[in-house]
């Protein structure tokens, strides 16, 4: 047991010298989340007990969140399974703040998705806001201008009494921060499922653009170069855990009041962005790092360990918001809107002038040294003296036991194929309407209307289209498309396939918009790694994703792991959010998801199998989750992608919409409602060819399928291309008139006026949350 009280004269600073002289001092390592063997390892590394400041640094950097100690052994596959050819599009990959992808013409793009789940449950607005703020700084740290954000949100049941609180706060927080930064929000995800009731998921993605030569990496090189901390002042944010140290050391005052919640200041971040970009342009920054989780502990140890020397920091130079902060607390503070730069002494005046121009406070707090140690002093007393790699990169690595849960067999045996199905035209009609108005398929406009999608003037597609598309180069029109996806029900049924299906869907969405998929980021949201069943899900997921990336030739460039997402013993469904980035030469060629021109012909590309387990239909109409998810077919996905990109480039299709949740039925609904233009559809040919019923044709969730609308003049070229490449295709309808009584007419089965369809699809979120 560790004692809560420390012996001796504790009002003194715990210096390295003092630590050397008092090896038997009892330290609160357990309260700080360290295991006994981890604490012993720190002592072995240092050859003495750590000072309380060192203990603070190790404990936070060796936490699950910062060290990836449970996930590391699995994440390695992402690098190992990336071939040389896949790597050829990367300017920087895993290990940097974010991966950087070459998109041609001297341009590069960087993107990454990260989680802010737990803070968003405690204080939804600030949790979500600071989540956006954090990922934007990651992108900025690569030398890139942030150009767009996306948010992936998962909440409990839509009608649960606590859901509205979280939804309101999170959506307002994502919007409040992103809108104020002037970053267009170009898409995201919104899912309601009881498994997220006590543990919502708030993931945020940021995309940035830069010229190749502007790439900045996080390292501290060049003896004598200065370490500059700039941005917001450091307060006591996010150091609830470490206040135990303060109270240990300064017990007569008792633990100080430290905020449990970080409050974001998007305005401070906006000026920080502009300031950084001007600093980059002026060429006064040698290395740069954002301050996120673990604050200065992380930034100093990571910069130093990635550099070629050591670093000496004078902690009393850190500008404080709260003068009572102790050195341990300053090291661990997670105050937002801060960055750290390495600057040559002869450029420091220029640096400071630019910071002053933007009213950004900056302070030189140390310098790069010749040695290999990271040393930190507090008013000339040495309180930290460590090898930085041992803090930043050589933390513990766990081979956590994993085991396929015994219940998995029964889950997979409980197929949705046994569920009663609608048969008549009327029953099918009712089902289409019911699904269209269900929580996960209904219009997301109530959310997306709270986000600015226009700012910067480069957004070529945003919600509700399949991918967000933004222009990178105003001259040429060069731009990127990004989509993220994850069907966590599929992942629950089969995590290996589920991860691949998430990739498959995001890949398809990017191609549907007309862009060539290039690279992947992921955010792996799971339950407790100490549960072997969860660990099995995690292992299966990483293996599935890495294998699939290899097949599709899209490397994982970076991402984030969020564990311990559970309420009591109930873990969330495994939720591997996968983001795909694609490039297009001219974003004005992007393909929207709805048809506009009457008379165009509608084709269904891909094969439909009877795949209903885990589907939206099974969930909405029967509350059922069981069986095995749709078959993964990456070869088909790749071919389909090529067809879609060529069709967009050659102007062969006017609209394209991918089939996923809710199957063909929901895709037709959305393609009609996109521009309020109806369609006449027939399913006989597809049913006969694929050996399926109309019900299956409408609601199955087989992969590698899209619907497209083709101008009649291009029909022959389009079908020739499909035939030549072996793309399964069938003409299933024509685009109808956009008049008052436009309908979605599925011949021989049912017909629904678009007004009725809109009435079913549009109001749910507004009515629930307004």
């Amino acid at each position, binding site marked *: 047991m560790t004692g809560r009280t420390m012996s001796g004269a504790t009002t003194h600073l715990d210096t390295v010298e003092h630590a050397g002289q008092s090896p038997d001092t009892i330290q609160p390592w357990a309260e700080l989340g360290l295991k006994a063997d981890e604490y012993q390892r720190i002592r072995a590394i240092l050859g003495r007990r750590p000072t309380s400041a060192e203990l603070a640094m190790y404990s936070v950097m060796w936490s699950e969140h910062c060290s990836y100690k449970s996930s590391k052994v699995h994440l390695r596959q992402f690098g190992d399974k990336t071939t040389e050819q896949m790597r050829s599009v990367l300017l920087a990959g895993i290990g940097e703040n974010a991966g950087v992808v070459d998109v041609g013409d001297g341009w590069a793009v960087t993107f990454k998705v990260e989680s802010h789940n737990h803070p968003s449950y405690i204080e939804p607005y600030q949790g979500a806001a600071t989540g956006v703020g954090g990922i934007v700084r990651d992108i900025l740290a690569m030398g890139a201008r942030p150009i767009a954000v996306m948010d992936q949100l998962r909440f409990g049941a839509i009608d649960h009494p606590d859901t509205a609180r979280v939804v309101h706060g999170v959506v*307002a927080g994502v*919007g*409040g921060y992103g*809108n*104020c*930064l*002037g970053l267009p929000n170009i898409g995201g995800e919104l899912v309601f499922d009881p498994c997220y009731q006590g543990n919502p998921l708030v993931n945020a993605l940021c995309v940035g653009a830069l010229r190749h030569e502007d790439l900045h990496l996080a390292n501290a090189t060049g003896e004598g170069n200065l370490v500059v901390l700039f941005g917001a002042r450091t307060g006591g944010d996010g150091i609830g855990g470490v206040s135990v140290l303060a109270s240990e050391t300064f017990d007569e005052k008792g633990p100080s009041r430290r905020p449990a919640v970080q409050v974001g*200041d*998007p*305005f*401070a971040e*906006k*000026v920080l962005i502009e300031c950084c970009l001007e600093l980059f342009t002026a060429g006064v920054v040698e290395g740069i790092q954002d301050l996120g989780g673990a604050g200065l502990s992380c930034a100093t140890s990571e910069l130093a360990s990635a550099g070629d020397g050591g670093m000496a920091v004078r902690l009393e130079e850190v500008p404080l918001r709260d003068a009572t902060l102790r050195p341990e607390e300053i090291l661990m503070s997670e105050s937002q809107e801060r960055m750290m730069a390495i600057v040559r002494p002869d450029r420091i005046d220029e640096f400071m002038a630019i910071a002053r*121009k*933007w*009213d950004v406070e900056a302070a030189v707090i140390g310098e790069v040294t010749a040695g290999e140690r990271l040393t930190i002093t507090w008013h000339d007393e040495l309180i930290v003296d460590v090898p930085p790699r041992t803090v930043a990169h050589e933390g513990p690595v766990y081979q956590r036991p994993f085991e396929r849960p015994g219940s998995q067999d029964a889950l997979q045996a409980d197929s949705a194929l046994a569920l009663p199905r609608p048969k008549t035209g009327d029953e099918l009609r009712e089902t289409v309407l019911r699904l269209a108005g269900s929580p996960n398929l209904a219009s997301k406009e109530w959310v*997306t*209307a*709270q*986000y*600015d*999608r*226009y*700012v*910067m*003037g*480069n*957004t*070529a597609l945003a919600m509700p289209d399949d991918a967000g598309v933004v*222009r990178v180069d*105003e001259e040429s029109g060069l731009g990127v498309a990004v989509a993220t996806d994850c069907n966590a029900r599929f992942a629950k049924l089969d995590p290996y396939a589920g991860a691949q299906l998430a990739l498959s869907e995001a890949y398809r969405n990017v191609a549907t918009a007309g862009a060539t998929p290039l690279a992947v980021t992921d955010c792996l949201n799971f339950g407790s790694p100490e549960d072997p069943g969860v660990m099995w899900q995690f292992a299966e997921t990483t293996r599935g994703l890495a294998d699939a990336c290899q097949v599709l030739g899209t490397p994982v460039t970076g991402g984030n792991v969020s564990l311990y997402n559970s309420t009591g013993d109930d873990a969330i469904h495994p939720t591997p959010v996968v983001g795909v980035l694609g490039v297009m030469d001219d*974003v*004005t060629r*992007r393909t929207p998801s709805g048809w*506009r021109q009457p008379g165009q012909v509608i084709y269904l590309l891909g094969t439909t199998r009877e795949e209903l387990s885990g589907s939206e239909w099974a969930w909405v109409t029967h509350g059922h989750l069981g069986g095995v998810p749709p078959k993964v077919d990456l070869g088909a996905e790749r071919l389909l992608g090529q067809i879609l990109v060529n069709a967009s480039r050659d102007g062969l299709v006017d609209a394209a919409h991918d089939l996923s949740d809710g199957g063909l039925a929901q895709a037709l609904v959305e393609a009609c409602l*996109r*521009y*309020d233009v109806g369609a006449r559809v027939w399913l006989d040919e597809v049913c006969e060819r694929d050996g399926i019923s109309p019900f299956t044709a409408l609601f199955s969730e087989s992969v590698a399928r899209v619907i497209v609308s083709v101008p009649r003049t291009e029909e022959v070229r389009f079908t020739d291309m499909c035939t030549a490449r072996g793309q399964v295709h069938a003409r299933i309808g024509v685009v109808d008139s956009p008049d008052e009584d436009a309908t979605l007419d599925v011949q021989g089965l049912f017909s629904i006026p678009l007004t009725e369809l809109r009435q079913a699809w549009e109001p749910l979120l507004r009515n629930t949350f*307004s």
Partner: protein
Amino acid sequence: MRVGVVTFPGSLDDQDAARAVRLAGGEAVSLWHGDCDLRGVDAVVLPGGFSYGDYLRCGAISRFAPVMEPLIAAAKGGLSVLGICNGFQVLCEAHLLPGALIRNDHRMFVCRDQRLSIERTDTPWTNQYQRGEEIVIPLKNGEGGYVADDATLDMLEGEGRVVARYVGGNPNGSYRNIAGVSNEAGNVVGLMPHPEHATEPFFGPDPRSGTTGLDGMRFFTSLLEKVAAA
């Protein structure tokens, strides 16, 4: 034609406003909030954004920026000034325009394609529109509710100083559906929605709202017309 676009800390749509000026055939000149200097421009756009985070009240802090000193004087002397969104808020705080903009009545940020009717067409920013013409341009704000006391509202309507009104639903609780107003002479115009975001094909409002997406362009070409005519 040199059109100044002011950048305050927290301005967001300044690049967009400058792009719109260029697309209209003008030269965009960037003006810095901290400089007490208009650099001899022929007109000024105060762009959208969250200057100073929109903390305190939108536009309240920027209104005291050094650049506002010569700007206020020049505006009173007849310089053409367009304040868009946050720029509109700055103009109200600076008392160049009457009224104020408060939190949307539904208390949420709203981003949507907004139908407007143009009511005053003798300003340097709107002379290419027809009176009563309906256009669609993006609207995006959290504090876009236009308010003033009844006497002021009556005066604005009586003198024909309402530049644009919301049509097809009031998006933010603005009194009398007012989306934009002008000073008496008409050279100073404030507008909540964003014409600069409807000036380039493929990057403006959605065709679903029955627009080409370019309805905002004439705010900028009007200006060139006016100067050419002068």
